[in-house]
C-alpha cells in the first residue's frame, strides 16, 4: 500500500451571501485520500464544486469544516513560516496559461518567483530555472521573453515549470489543457506524464474533458452538487459507471453535438413521425426539437426483478391469426416492452437500439401523466378543477376553453371545432403540430401554442359528449404552470418523477415560446413509464408515501358517466368504456385502464392481475384499428398468465 500524501476528510465549504442566509454548500462533506504517485481526476459539470474542492484541498481557501492533511500535517493554525514551508510541497497549474503569468515578468522571473519567496540565493535559482526550462522542453533563448511573446503551449510549459520550482510533491492541474490546440494538448499531456515519473509527483486533475481525464488518471471521482457520486478506478468508472449521473455525464459527453452519421436518410421536420423514420426520431427527439429536462430521482431504489420465462412462450389469437409472443412484438414494430407483475419486473425486451435507460417519445401517453399532476394540485387546493379555464387564463376567455371547466378538459368533454385527424394537412390537429413546432410552418404562420389555442372556437354545449381533443391537454399544461408558477417539466419532476423513484432523465418538448407540449411531448425510459403505471396500480402510494391522492385513482377507475361516453367509436372499442382524467377506461371484467399514444405507445394498468405494461413502438401509421386490437389482445394474454 502506497503512502498517503494528502488526506481530505469531511471537507465542507459553504458560501454565504446576503440573499442566501443559509448559504450555498459548494462542497458537501467530501473525504478522499491521495496516494503517492497516483493521478486522481475529478470530473463534473461546471458549478459542481470541483474547483472549490481543489482550492480547499490546496489551502487556497479555508474549508468551512473538515480537515486537510498534507504529508501528515494540517495547514490550519500554523505560523506564516510553517505554512509557507508546507505549501512548498504543493504546485498549481491553471486553465488559462497566458492569464496566470504576470505579463510584466520574463519567463525567468516567473519561474524564479516561488524560489525567491522561499529564500533561495540567485545562483541556486538560476541553476534550478535552467534545469526546469530544459525539462519542460523550452530553449534557454526563451528566458528573457514575456508571456505575450509565447504561444499558448509555451505559456503552459512555463506555468508547469513554475509549479515545479519548489520541488512539490503534489500538483494541482485545473483544466491544464482546455485552452490549447489538440496537438499542443497532446504534447502537454505527454510532458505531464514524463514529469510525474521524473519528479515523483502526485497529480490532482480537474477537468470537464473526459478524454483527458480517462487518458491520464488512475482514479476518477465524479462530482455533482458538491458531493462525490462515484469514485473508482478510471477504467471501471468510464466503461461501467454505476451511478445514474456518471452514466449521463459519459453519454452526454460522447454525444458532444449531434452525430450526423446517426440521422436517417430522408429525415425532415415533416417526415419524422412516420415509419420507419420514427424509429430513430422517437428515441432522439431532444436532438432535433427544443426540450426541457425532467430530472429523475437522485437516489432511486432499485426495481425488484424476477424474470418469468413463461411470458415469452405465450401464444395470442387475434384477427383469425395465431401469433407467438415474439412474432406479435415484431408485427407491432415494438421498440421496447417492460412488464411488471405485483410490483416485480417480470419481463423486459428492447429492440431497434433501445436500451434500459434510453428515452422514447410517449406521444399521448403524456396526457395520463398530466392527469395525475392535476390530482396532486387539486389535493393541495392550488387548483380547483370545477372552475373555468377562462377564470385562470383570461387570454383564453373568448376561445372554446373560456367557459369550460378544468374537469371537462381532463375528461375530454369540451365541445370544440377541432378535427383530431393526424393525416389531414388541413385539420386543426396538423395546425396544432405546426404551432408546437412538430412540423414545419408555412410562410407567415405564427409560431407557438398560445396564439393557436386562442383561435379555437366552441361548437356546442360542454360536458355533454366525449370529444378527444389534444389541444385540451396543451391548455391544461399551460394552465398548471401559470397557476403554480413552476414550469411543467419541473412539476413532473418534483411531484411525480422524483418521489416515485424514476431512474432516468426524461424530457418534454417545448414550443418556440418555451411552453411545454403537454399533449404528447414527454419522453421517458420504458422502465420509468412502467414505474408510473405501478404507482397508479398501487393507488398512488410508493414506499409508504401517498404521491397521488387515492380518491382520484378510485374516481379514474370508476370512469366517466355513460351518457357522456355514449359516443359510437368509443363504445365500439370498449363497450361500456369511457375516458376519465386523461385515461382510457375499458370497463371490461378485469377493469383495466390505459394511456395510449399514436404509433403504438402504451401504459396499461390491469388491477385484477396486478399487471403493468409499458410498451413503445414505431408503427408505420398513427392510428389503426387492427393494431389496437392486437395490442389489447397481447396485453390481456399477458394478464391472464
Amino acid at each position, binding site marked *: 500500500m502506497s503512502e498517503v500524501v494528502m488526506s481530505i476528510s469531511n471537507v465542507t465549504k459553504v458560501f454565504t451571501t446576503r440573499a442566501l442566509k443559509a448559504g450555498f454548500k459548494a462542497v458537501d462533506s467530501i473525504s478522499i485520500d491521495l496516494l503517492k504517485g497516483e493521478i486522481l481526476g475529478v470530473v463534473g459539470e461546471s458549478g459542481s464544486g470541483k474547483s472549490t474542492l481543489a482550492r480547499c484541498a490546496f489551502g487556497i481557501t479555508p474549508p468551512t469544516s473538515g480537515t486537510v492533511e498534507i504529508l501528515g500535517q494540517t495547514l490550519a493554525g500554523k505560523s506564516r513560516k510553517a505554512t509557507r514551508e508546507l505549501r512548498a510541497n504543493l504546485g498549481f497549474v491553471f486553465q488559462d496559461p497566458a492569464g496566470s503569468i504576470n505579463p510584466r515578468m520574463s519567463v525567468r522571473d516567473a519561474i524564479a518567483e516561488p524560489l525567491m519567496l522561499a529564500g533561495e540565493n540567485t545562483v541556486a535559482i538560476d541553476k534550478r530555472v535552467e534545469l526546469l526550462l530544459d525539462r519542460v522542453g523550452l530553449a534557454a533563448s526563451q528566458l528573457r521573453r514575456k508571456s505575450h511573446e509565447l504561444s499558448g503551449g509555451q505559456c503552459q510549459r512555463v506555468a508547469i515549470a513554475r509549479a515545479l520550482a519548489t520541488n512539490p510533491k503534489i500538483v494541482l492541474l485545473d483544466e491544464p489543457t482546455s485552452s490549447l*490546440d489538440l496537438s499542443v494538448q497532446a504534447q502537454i499531456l505527454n510532458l505531464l506524464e514524463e514529469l510525474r515519473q521524473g519528479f515523483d509527483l502526485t497529480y490532482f486533475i480537474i477537468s470537464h474533458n473526459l478524454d483527458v481525464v480517462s487518458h491520464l488518471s488512475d482514479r476518477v471521482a465524479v462530482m455533482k452538487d458538491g458531493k462525490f457520486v462515484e469514485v473508482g478506478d478510471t477504467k471501471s468508472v468510464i466503461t461501467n459507471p454505476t451511478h445514474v449521473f456518471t452514466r449521463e455525464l459519459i453519454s452526454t459527453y460522447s454525444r458532444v453535438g*449531434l452525430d450526423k452519421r446517426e440521422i436517417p436518410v430522408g429525415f425532415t421536420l415533416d417526415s419524422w413521425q412516420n415509419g420507419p423514420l420514427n424509429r430513430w426520431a422517437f428515441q432522439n427527439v431532444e436532438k432535433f426539437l427544443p426540450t426541457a429536462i425532467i430530472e429523475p430521482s437522485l437516489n432511486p431504489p432499485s426495481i425488484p426483478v424476477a424474470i418469468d420465462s413463461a411470458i415469452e412462450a405465450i401464444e395470442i389469437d387475434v384477427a383469425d391469426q395465431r401469433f407467438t409472443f415474439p412474432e406479435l412484438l415484431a408485427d407491432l414494430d415494438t421498440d421496447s416492452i417492460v412488464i411488471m407483475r405485483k410490483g416485480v419486473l417480470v419481463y423486459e425486451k428492447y429492440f431497434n437500439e433501445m436500451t434500459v435507460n434510453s428515452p422514447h417519445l410517449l406521444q399521448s401517453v403524456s396526457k395520463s401523466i398530466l392527469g395525475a399532476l392535476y390530482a396532486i394540485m387539486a389535493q393541495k387546493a392550488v387548483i380547483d378543477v370545477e372552475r373555468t379555464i377562462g377564470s385562470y387564463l383570461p387570454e383564453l376567455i373568448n376561445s372554446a376553453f373560456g367557459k369550460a371547466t378544468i374537469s371537462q378538459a381532463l375528461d375530454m368533454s369540451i365541445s370544440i371545432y377541432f378535427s383530431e385527424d393526424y393525416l389531414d394537412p388541413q385539420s386543426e390537429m396538423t395546425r396544432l403540430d405546426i404551432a408546437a413546432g412538430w412540423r414545419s410552418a408555412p410562410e407567415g404562420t405564427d409560431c407557438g401554442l398560445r396564439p393557436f389555442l386562442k383561435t379555437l372556437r366552441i361548437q356546442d354545449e360542454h360536458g355533454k359528449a366525449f370529444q378527444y381533443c389534444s389541444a385540451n391537454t396543451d391548455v391544461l399544461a399551460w394552465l398548471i404552470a401559470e397557476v403554480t408558477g413552476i414550469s411543467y417539466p419541473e412539476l413532473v419532476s418534483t411531484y411525480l418523477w422524483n418521489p416515485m423513484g424514476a431512474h432516468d432523465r426524461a424530457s418534454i418538448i417545448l414550443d*418556440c415560446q*418555451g411552453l411545454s407540449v403537454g399533449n404528447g411531448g414527454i419522453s421517458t425510459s420504458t422502465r420509468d413509464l412502467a414505474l408510473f403505471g405501478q404507482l397508479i396500480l398501487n393507488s398512488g402510494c410508493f414506499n409508504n408515501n401517498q404521491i397521488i391522492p387515492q380518491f382520484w385513482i378510485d374516481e379514474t377507475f370508476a370512469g366517466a358517466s355513460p351518457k357522456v361516453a355514449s359516443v359510437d367509436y368509443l363504445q365500439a372499442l370498449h363497450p361500456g368504456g369511457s375516458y376519465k382524467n386523461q385515461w382510457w377506461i375499458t370497463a371490461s371484467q378485469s377493469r383495466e385502464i390505459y394511456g395510449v399514444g399514436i404509433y403504438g405507445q402504451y401504459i396499461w394498468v390491469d388491477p385484477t392481475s396486478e399487471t403493468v405494461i409499458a410498451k413503445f413502438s414505431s408503427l408505420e401509421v398513427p392510428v389503426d384499428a387492427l393494431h389496437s386490437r392486437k395490442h389489447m389482445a397481447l396485453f390481456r394474454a399477458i394478464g391472464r398468465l
Partner: protein
Amino acid sequence: MNSVLKITQLEVDFCLNGVIMNSPLRGMNLEVKAGKTLGIVGETGCGKTLTAMAIMGLLPSTAVVRGDIELADHGRVTAVDMARIRGEEIVMIFQNPQSAFNPIFTIGEQLKMVAKRRNIARSEIEKLLISRLTSVGLNDTKRVLASYPHELSGGMLQRAMIAMSLLSSPKLLIADEPTTALDATVGDQVLRLIQELQISEGFAMLFISHDVSAVGKTSDEIAVVYAGKIVETGPTPVVMNNPKHPYTQGLLGAIPSADKARGTLVAISGNVPSKLTGLVGCSFVERCPMRIDRCVDEPPMVKVDEHSVACWRSEQ
C-alpha cells in the same frame, strides 16, 4: 446536390507599402453544399479564420485577396456584392461573443437593428425577437432583451449571437470556433443547439474548429487545412477512419483516450510555419515523420478513393 458556396484558388497576401509581407492563404478550394456542414480543421495559424474573413470580405485594406467566390443565385461575387449579401444570406458567428457584441447597446437594441433591415412591421419585430430567442433556449426573453452584453454569461451571449445571425433566415452560417471561448459543458450545449437549428431551418454551415473530434462528429465533409492550403478533404467518416495525409494522421493521433498508454500520445513536433511567402515544396515537410526526397516539390491534390490528398506518399 447544388452548392451554396464555392471557392476556387483563394489567395490572400498581406502587403505593406506594396511589399508582400506574408501570404497566409495560398490557394484554397472548397465547396459547401446546401443544407450540409463542411468542417475546416487545422492548428492555430493555418488560415481557418482567414478563409472565413476573406469570404465575408472583412479583411483590412492591407490584404490583397485573389481567387473566385461563387454563391448560389449570385454567381461570382465581388467585395461590393458581398457587402450587401453578408448578414442576410451569409451570416457568421465568432469565437468570442463578448467582443462581437457592442458593449454600449442592450441585446434588444442590437437585435432590433438587424431585424429592421428586413421589411417587417414594427409590431412584428418584437414577436420575431421573442420567438428567435426562445428557439435558442433563452426563455427569459424580457431580461435578455433588456441586458447589456456584460450582464449575460458567455453561453447566453453566444446563444443571443446565434439568434441574431438567424434573424434573416440565412442560407449559410459560418461558425468560427463558436464554442472555444465557452466553458466546455456550455460549449457542448451551444454546439448541439446549432445542429438542432440546422435541422429545423435547413441552412448550410461552414464549421471552423481546431477540435478534430468535434468536427468529426458534426460535419458531413471535412477539409484539413495546413499552412494556407487544404491538404486533405473528403466525406467526414472516410477521412476520420482512414486519414491519408500525415498531418491528418497526426491530428487524430493527438486525441487522448483511455486506450492509449500515458505519455505516448502522438504529438506533431514543431510549429506551423509563420511566414509562408515564397514557400517551396510541401509545407509540412519540416514536421513530417514520413518525408521522402520528392517532398522538395509541392505535391498536387490527387484523388485517392473518396478523398483528395496532397501528399506524395498517398499514391503508395
